């Protein structure tokens, strides 16, 4: 089949574009290298919807961030995505001066973003009781928020799928042939034909662009490492930024939308686009940075550490629009921070570029802007929990004790549009295994449910990609009886 659009990459950028395009009468497919949506940079970042005062004036980053920030309220309501506008503080410590804070304040005023400068220590402490006593002045931006980046991508993908966009996973694009009127996009299993290509492939956007004939930019990875702490009530209340360095916004301390607290990220340039490992010195750097803002941050509450890679383009800005070299190749490349905060605007901008290129887009009459509300047992009052379990006993069966996730929610995550096919897929849709025991208790149980729902053997279930298997065969005791039951004869156990 010849698609109107092939979208390469299913991070927040690709899924936001897919959803925007699904408002129109088009055929589109999202082609993703990994096993699910949001498996690369979109799952390992700070999850902050920035207010928009930060990026240099006139840049795509600033324009897209400012345009997108107000869009999150509606879309998060429509698609049931948890989002909280906690507000942020940029924290200047004694001796760091006020220049930077004032510059950001100016940006805020110029860009019509609510900002205020606060110097009164007691007022700052009231907002953020555990902040360092070294604080001299802060910039408060109430419209900054926190979101779950993978829930955003999952919800966008589901909604795009409901409205007709197809998704294919475990399909790395290896070559693109330009046939003039259309492109042929090759993956190991299958080739896809499309009239236009949208490049939303994150760290690999330069390679995809080159495959399509445009070598005008390069992407280099910049790693950021994190430490995630357990839920801690309101120990940290707002997104706390230090005065940044040239390379990054600096090491922050912030709540996540689910109530955990994280420290990070640091910033290190590297050659490998695949290396998302954490390092001892990196984690030490993160701790040191975090303590500058919250000196007594309880690291014993640490539950995991991880790293993400920023896709830094050679222009040091987002690259958005139709390629000047290859017509009908649309770029959404170099989407480094604040890419998450900008993806809704980027999607609109890409669709505008499509229209401007002469492709005619007609709005659908029957676009469905919402998705089925996911049931989240942990958030329900007792009376509803009771009714739910009586309606379907799977909702009375707790699988994840840390996050209180039921079997019913897991089954729901598997059966939804663009549903979970892997243990991580279930995890990112339901929070199973994200708590303090990090899957120790629930992983064997989730594997069982996945196998049952997908109609495969338990040892075929993977964490993410096909190379992330859990098991290496069966134990001695199980080998014989299970084999025996196949040919029907009785074999005594050793």
């Amino acid at each position, binding site marked *: 089949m010849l698609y109107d659009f092939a979208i390469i990459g299913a991070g927040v950028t690709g899924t936001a574009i897919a959803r925007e395009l699904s408002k129109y009468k088009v055929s589109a497919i999202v082609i993703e290298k990994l096993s699910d949506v949001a498996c690369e940079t979109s799952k390992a970042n700070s999850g902050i919807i920035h207010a928009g005062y930060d990026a240099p004036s006139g840049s795509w980053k600033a324009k897209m961030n400012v345009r997108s920030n107000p869009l999150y309220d509606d879309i998060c309501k429509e698609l049931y995505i948890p989002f909280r506008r906690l507000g942020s503080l940029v924290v200047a410590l004694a001796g760091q001066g006020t220049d930077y804070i004032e510059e950001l304040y100016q940006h805020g005023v110029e860009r019509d973003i609510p900002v205020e400068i606060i110097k009164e220590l007691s007022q700052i402490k009231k907002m953020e009781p555990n902040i360092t006593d070294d604080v001299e002045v802060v910039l408060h931006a109430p419209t900054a928020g926190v979101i779950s980046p993978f829930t955003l991508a999952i919800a966008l993908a589901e909604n795009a799928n409901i409205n007709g966009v197809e998704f294919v996973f475990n399909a790395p694009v290896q070559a693109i042939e330009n046939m003039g009127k259309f492109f042929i996009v090759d993956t190991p299993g299958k080739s896809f034909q499309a009239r236009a290509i949208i490049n939303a492939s994150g760290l690999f956007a330069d390679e995809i662009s080159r495959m399509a004939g445009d070598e005008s930019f390069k992407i280099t990875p910049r790693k950021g490492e994190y430490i995630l702490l357990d839920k801690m009530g309101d120990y940290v209340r707002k997104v706390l930024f230090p005065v940044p360095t040239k390379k990054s916004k600096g090491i922050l301390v912030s709540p996540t939308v689910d109530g955990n607290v994280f420290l990070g990220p640091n910033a290190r340039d590297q050659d490998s686009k695949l290396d998302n490992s954490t390092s001892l010195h990196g984690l030490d750097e993160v701790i040191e940075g975090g303590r500058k803002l919250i000196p007594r941050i309880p690291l014993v509450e640490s539950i995991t550490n991880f790293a993400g890679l920023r896709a830094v383009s050679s222009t040091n800005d987002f690259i958005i629009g139709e390629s000047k070299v290859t017509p009908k190749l649309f770029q959404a490349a170099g989407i480094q921070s604040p890419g998450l905060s900008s993806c809704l605007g980027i999607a609109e901008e890409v669709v505008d570029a499509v229209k401007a290129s002469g492709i005619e887009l007609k709005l659908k009459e029957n676009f469905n802007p919402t998705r089925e509300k996911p049931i989240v047992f942990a958030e329900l009052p007792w009376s509803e929990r*009771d009714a739910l379990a009586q309606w379907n006993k799977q909702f009375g069966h*707790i699988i994840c004790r840390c996050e209180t996730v039921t079997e019913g929610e897991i089954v729901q995550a598997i059966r939804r549009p663009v549903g979970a096919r892997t243990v991580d897929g279930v995890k990112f849709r339901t929070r199973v295994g994200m708590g303090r025991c990090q899957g120790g208790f629930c992983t064997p149980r989730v594997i069982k449910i996945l196998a049952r729902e997908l109609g495969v053997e338990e040892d075929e279930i993977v964490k993410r990609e096909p190379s992330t298997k*859990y098991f290496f065969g069966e134990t001695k005791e199980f080998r014989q009886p299970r084999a025996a039951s196949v040919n029907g004869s009785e074999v005594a156990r050793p």
Partner: protein
Amino acid sequence: MMQKETDVAVIGGGPAGLAAAIEANKGGCSVTIIERDDGLGGILQQCIHPGFGLHEFKEELAGPEYAQRYIDMLGETKVDVMLGTMVLDMTPKKEILAINEQGVVKVQAKAIVLAMGCRERTRGAIKIPGYRPTGVYTAGTAQRFVNIEGFMPGTRYVILGSGDIGMIMARRLTWEGAKVEAVVEIMSYPSGLIRNKVQCLDDFGIPLYLSHTVVRVHGKDRVTGITIARVDENWKMVPGTEIFFSCDTLLLSVGLIPENEVSRKAGIRLARTNGPEVNQFLQTNVEGVFACGNVLQVHDLVDNVAIEAKRAGAMAAMYATGIRLPSINSPDAVPLVAGRGIGYVLPIKVNTGVDLALASRIGPVNVSLRVKRPVDDVYVRVKNGAKEVYKKFFKHLRPSEMVIFELSAAALNAIDKAQPIEAYLEPKPAKELSEAKVA
């Protein structure tokens, strides 16, 4: 919503819950066990190795066999068991909210015994850098895979932590034909029982690297190797001491933490052990709520779990039948503190001036403690101001072996409540030692 009333509710049906329930029932109470699993026995169901019940039954039973003895005893009582029922909330008024496949269950109890056991510490809790591939499991999860599900989580292993579960798994996996390359321990001594080091590592030629830790996990999708390195006294890695092992699995046996979500919800104060603060009646700061087993302190021997749990069960029954037990919040409760060389000591407080009739009915009080690090030739002493409460000599003491001793009701009644009680270690004077040798 199902509603139910019971004299004593026991949360958790592992060995602690079972023993407590039977005892509370003997005390003339209606008892309900609430267990989230589909069967009773708790962690013992996956411990198929022998080594349980040596003291209690004078036999080396496997975990499930030991559990079965208690399940059989329970069968002869009228204790009500709710399986597949997870407790999610509990109030100081002793109302329990749980869920199972029939819906929400509300249990109103007169007394509650907490017996929820513990959970394993994870990779995140100990900051191991590297990739996040499959092939990193806690030892208990691996134990469940192997012993219950029948799957092998890997073929070549490195095990971090020389806790008992890790060492037992090293032997289990070797029996299954897997190769255990190394057991790695950050301390300068093994953290599990010596008998497990001998029977599970030494007998199989599995090397134990003391004062080493994992400094990197290799492999983006599946573990491909583990780098370990020596650490100094401050647990900082010593550069240049790295050793690489090619393997596909890393098991973590780095400690257990009491399962205390539900306790927190009821406003129960937690101690340094991460378990509830209790007095000698095993009563928490919420009156009528008692704790025992691994939810109170991590035990190495199930026999000790049973002793502690029986006491909790008996106390809960007394409370439920209207006998008020002195409160840990009372000014008569004297702190029992961990002094020199002691990691922790329980109970956290000892109530003095207990009514004599009650005291004699309750009998002597158990004190349990663990030392901070291995020591030889020491006295364990307990003092109340200048007064000696307890003194005993030990040839060897290790953190892995809990020390348990009794304090008589008389000794407790003589306590001066103006002074704290302190447990500490005192090295035996060299003179006494050399004299002992000569003799």
